[in-house]
């Protein structure tokens, strides 16, 4: 009895503190999941750099200086310059802006599509599941690249197109993962119990299914952020992404970075390391978030 009572009273004392729920969450994040907090810090740093690129960057993103071409990192250009003499630091900072925007919006669209399709087909089952999932099968059996080339050649390259397309691609494929999770949650006794109290389908989806697939959705989202940033770099490489001279990390990596890999490795290293760091940071933060939000894994304070 005593050890059962402890968590409840603990929750009460922490509520009595003046701090709001957000501050309390941050405190828990730092105390219980230091690695996750580190990931969040890295990610916020990149986000800030991206948002403030206009202020922070020493040079314009497309400011050409033909005299200082392919210079190694120095005091004037901490990350060196590229084949057109553009300052790499500035380009990486502006790239953060584009990559973070694309990564987040496309992953968000993908997650929403996955959740809506997955929850509906998984919970309703039967004919709805049959019909929708055959469309998903058909969609997934097309090579992504073919689909992208066709669509981009019709509507033209550009950031909104890239975000929408990648969101749709990853979203439809991800609906399978959410659907699988929903099917296993649906069979739980508490879902039957909710039905026996007269709850409507919408209420059951919102109160009983969704909270129990949230851990999977969070992981899905964080892995998608990384995947989208990488996919965008692939698209930029074949000229279907955000068109140059816009400084996306993928574009830098596959453009000048690849051509001058041996003469000027910093051209590939700078965007490459940034890409790795952001993807890593988002992933560890996602893992921490999943653990903190799951009441079953919550340790007694």
């Amino acid at each position, binding site marked *: 009895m005593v050890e059962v009572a402890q968590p409840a*009273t603990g929750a009460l004392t922490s509520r009595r503190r003046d701090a709001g729920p957000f501050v309390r969450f941050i405190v828990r994040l730092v105390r219980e999941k230091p690695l996750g907090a580190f990931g969040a810090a890295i990610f916020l740093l990149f986000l800030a750099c991206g948002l403030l690129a206009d202020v922070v960057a020493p040079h314009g993103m497309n400011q050409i200086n033909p005299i200082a071409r392919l210079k190694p990192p120095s005091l004037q250009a901490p990350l060196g310059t590229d084949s057109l003499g553009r300052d790499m630091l500035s380009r990486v900072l502006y790239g953060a802006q584009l990559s973070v925007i694309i990564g987040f919006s496309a992953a968000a669209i993908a997650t929403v599509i996955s959740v809506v399709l997955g929850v509906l087909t998984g919970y309703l089952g039967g004919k709805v599941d049959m019909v929708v999932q055959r469309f998903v099968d058909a969609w997934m059996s097309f090579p992504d690249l073919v689909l992208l080339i066709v669509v981009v050649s019709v509507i033209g390259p550009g950031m909104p197109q890239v975000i929408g397309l990648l969101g749709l691609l990853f979203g439809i494929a991800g609906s399978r993962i959410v659907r699988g999770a929903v099917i296993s949650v649906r069979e739980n006794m508490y879902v039957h119990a*909710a039905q*026996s109290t*007269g709850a409507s389908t919408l*209420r059951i989806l919102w109160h009983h299914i969704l909270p129990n697939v949230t851990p999977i959705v969070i992981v899905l989202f964080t892995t998608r952020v990384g995947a989208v940033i990488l996919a965008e770099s692939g698209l930029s490489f074949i000229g279907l992404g955000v068109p140059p001279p816009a400084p996306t990390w993928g574009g830098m990596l596959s453009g000048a970075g690849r051509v001058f890999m041996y003469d000027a490795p910093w051209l590939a290293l700078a965007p490459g390391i940034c890409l790795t760091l952001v993807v890593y940071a988002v992933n560890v933060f996602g893992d921490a978030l999943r653990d903190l939000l799951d009441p079953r894994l919550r340790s007694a304070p």
Partner: protein
Amino acid sequence: MAGSMTSPLLQVRGLTVQFRTDRGFVNAVDSVSLNVDAGETLAVVGESGSGKSVTALSLLRLVPSPQGRIVAGEVIFDGQDLLTLDDRQMRAVRGNRIAMIFQEPMSSLNPTLTMGLQVAEPFSIHDGTPWAAALGKAKTLLDRVRIPDSGARLAAYPHQFSGGMRQRVMIAMALACRPRMIIADEPTTALDVTVQAQILDLLKELTQETRSALILITHDLGVVARYADRVCVMYAGRIVETGTARDIYERASHPYTRALMASIPRLDRDTATRLEPIEGYPPSLAQLPPGCAFHPRCRFAADPCGRRVPMLEKIGERHHRACFVDAAV
């Protein structure tokens, strides 16, 4: 006598529930008829697979579909045939006029929601009570099922409760809208023996307080003796004997009921009496023997048993049984 004057709260007539299996359709529940009077406790007993849980689920039309469906019968509750209601009307009955308590308190509560939200949910569903007020009512309910420190417990999660406490919470949720009838499907099977009696006492006490009828699904004949007013004994999807608890305990007439009684230890019998197991296994529903489903295991089986299915016949004031064998054996 009073029961026959007014119509009962629940009248089930010829309820038949089919499940689709690899070997075709099987009748998990076969022409079951039963009555429950207001405020009465009816125990439905039987072995696993005898159809007692499916009967309970079909009263609320919660039989898992599409594999299972109710193919025939009437479920008349408070003058209304539940099988003819549309989905919305049916939802207004569930948890409001008929509530259900499930077998496994460990998994019947959503692990991601606080107790308060879950106990308050019936108020929000059926009365549209705003959350703040519903939470207040939830606290009162937790007090009624004697959960200590109920205010703090509203913010706790299910994994912080023991099995017995969770079953108390389930009872609280069932009582929320003061239902006319509560169906408890083996409410204590998953609990420690010491907790079982507490939970059943509480359930009985609270249903008497609210004058709710109680259908108690169980395979525990000890529970039946102590808590039930009347008993239905099920075998292979059919009711084989029904009567008052006294009828069943003192004047059990169907060979299956008698065999069940002989297979449990009793304090009021000579300790020298041996317990007698029932020979054989319950039949598979997909391959029921012809005639009376119990006849291959029945020591009294005679000529008509393997050819015709016996119907329920009245043998006492409220005592019925379905058997060809002479009642005097």
